[in-house]
């Protein structure tokens, strides 16, 4: 902290004012929508002012439905292409409900991008394991696409994906393409399936012992419910992956996205600024305590 004697609040305030208002959003227009599953929709948005939004894989925006409210939503689009802003949204509340119901032409307000990214390129020269469950595939998709743009720079790449039922599997066509054409081992499992389901039933953690990777030379990117991420981190540690090489994307209540509102604090961390992507090394002592 600046010592009290040196502190010049007027300078700091002037600097802050010049930096602009992080709470003021930009209007975006819904261009296309796609119903991914029963409760999940992908929105493609274009900025009304025409200036595209640059982001890193893993970052999120604060997405606002006028008169309803604002929620943090991870970007699910391709970070290597300048184009439409893409969000894959699950209908779980009033704001997300309004967002998935937004028809083409609807104006939404966007702030961001905010937060830390996956930094998947740290895995170049080694193996990369993506592990995800449920809607967690959406925040990982930009990292997968970033990797695929330079597939030859990575060794073995695996995507382990758990969904509730076969009907809840996201991006099914893309999963097949990644597996068949792009050299990714894609393993999918569901919590339970109908009689007609010919695939695997079980927990995504059970896939971890089944795939080949070099634990000392692997970056593992994990995104899903906290319980799932903890179980995956434990299984990865069990295979010898260092805690510092395991990255998780944390979810917390967020009202500002820029470290001001205080809602997303996890002990000393502001998840919106220090995260959402953090190493298991950093998170392990915090995730194992109830209601922290």
């Amino acid at each position, binding site marked *: 902290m600046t010592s009290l004697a040196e502190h010049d609040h007027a300078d700091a305030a002037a600097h802050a004012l010049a930096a602009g208002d992080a709470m003021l959003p930009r209007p975006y227009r819904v261009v296309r929508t796609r119903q991914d599953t029963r409760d999940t929709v992908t929105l493609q948005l274009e900025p009304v002012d025409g200036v595209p939004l640059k982001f890193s894989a893993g970052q999120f925006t604060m997405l606002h439905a006028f008169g309803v409210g604002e929620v943090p939503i991870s970007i699910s689009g391709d970070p290597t292409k300048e184009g439409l802003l893409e969000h894959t949204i699950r*209908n779980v509340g009033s704001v997300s409900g309004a967002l998935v119901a937004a028809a083409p032409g609807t104006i939404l307000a966007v702030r961001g991008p905010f937060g830390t990214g996956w930094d998947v390129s740290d895995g170049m020269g080694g193996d990369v394991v993506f592990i995800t469950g449920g809607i967690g595939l959406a925040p990982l998709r930009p990292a997968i696409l970033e990797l695929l743009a330079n597939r030859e720079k990575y060794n073995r790449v695996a995507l382990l994906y758990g969904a509730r039922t076969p009907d809840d599997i996201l991006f099914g066509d893309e999963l097949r393409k990644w597996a068949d054409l792009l050299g990714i081992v894609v393993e999918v499992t569901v919590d*339970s399936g109908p009689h007609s389901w010919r695939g695997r039933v*079980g*927990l995504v953690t059970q896939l971890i012992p089944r795939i080949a990777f070099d634990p000392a030379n692997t970056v593992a990117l994990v995104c*899903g419910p906290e319980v799932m991420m903890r179980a995956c981190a434990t299984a990865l540690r069990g295979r010898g992956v260092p805690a510092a090489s395991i990255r998780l994307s944390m979810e917390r209540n967020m009202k500002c996205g820029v470290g001001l509102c205080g809602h997303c604090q996890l002990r000393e961390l502001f998840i919106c600024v220090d995260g959402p992507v953090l190493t298991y090394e950093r998170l392990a002592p915090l995730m194992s305590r109830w209601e922290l």
Partner: protein
Amino acid sequence: MQTIEEYLPEHPFFAGLDQPTLELLAGCATNVHFDANEVLFHEGDQADTFYIVRKGLIAIQVQSPSAGGVVVDTAEAGGVVGWSWLVPPYRWMFDARASEPTSAVAFDGACLRGKCESDPAVGYALMQRVARVMLDRLEAARLRLIDMYGSSS
């Protein structure tokens, strides 16, 4: 094709067992094959077999009048199927069906129990392996119980 004695050390379930023990257990085993959709066993039937899967996929499922058949677990290459042969009343609790053409090694349950009882060291080694798989399944089942991916609305 490999003999059962040659294959058993390659299956993760038997990893670490010594050759004499494997030969002993192989005496209870036969190779089996199931076509897609073929039923291995039905709920309530006499449970007299333990399967280790060599390739393919076996679905453990339960009939429900409202939901139809629900697949609650699967076992694939490297996995195992069937615990009910271990403990009385030796009856299956679920149905098992091959989701795709599947090769497995089938062990006669009574034969395995006999080996375990006559040689407690073999019995302990086998039970340790059974416990490890059961623990893995139980943990996974508990986590699936909380519906962590969440249902909407």
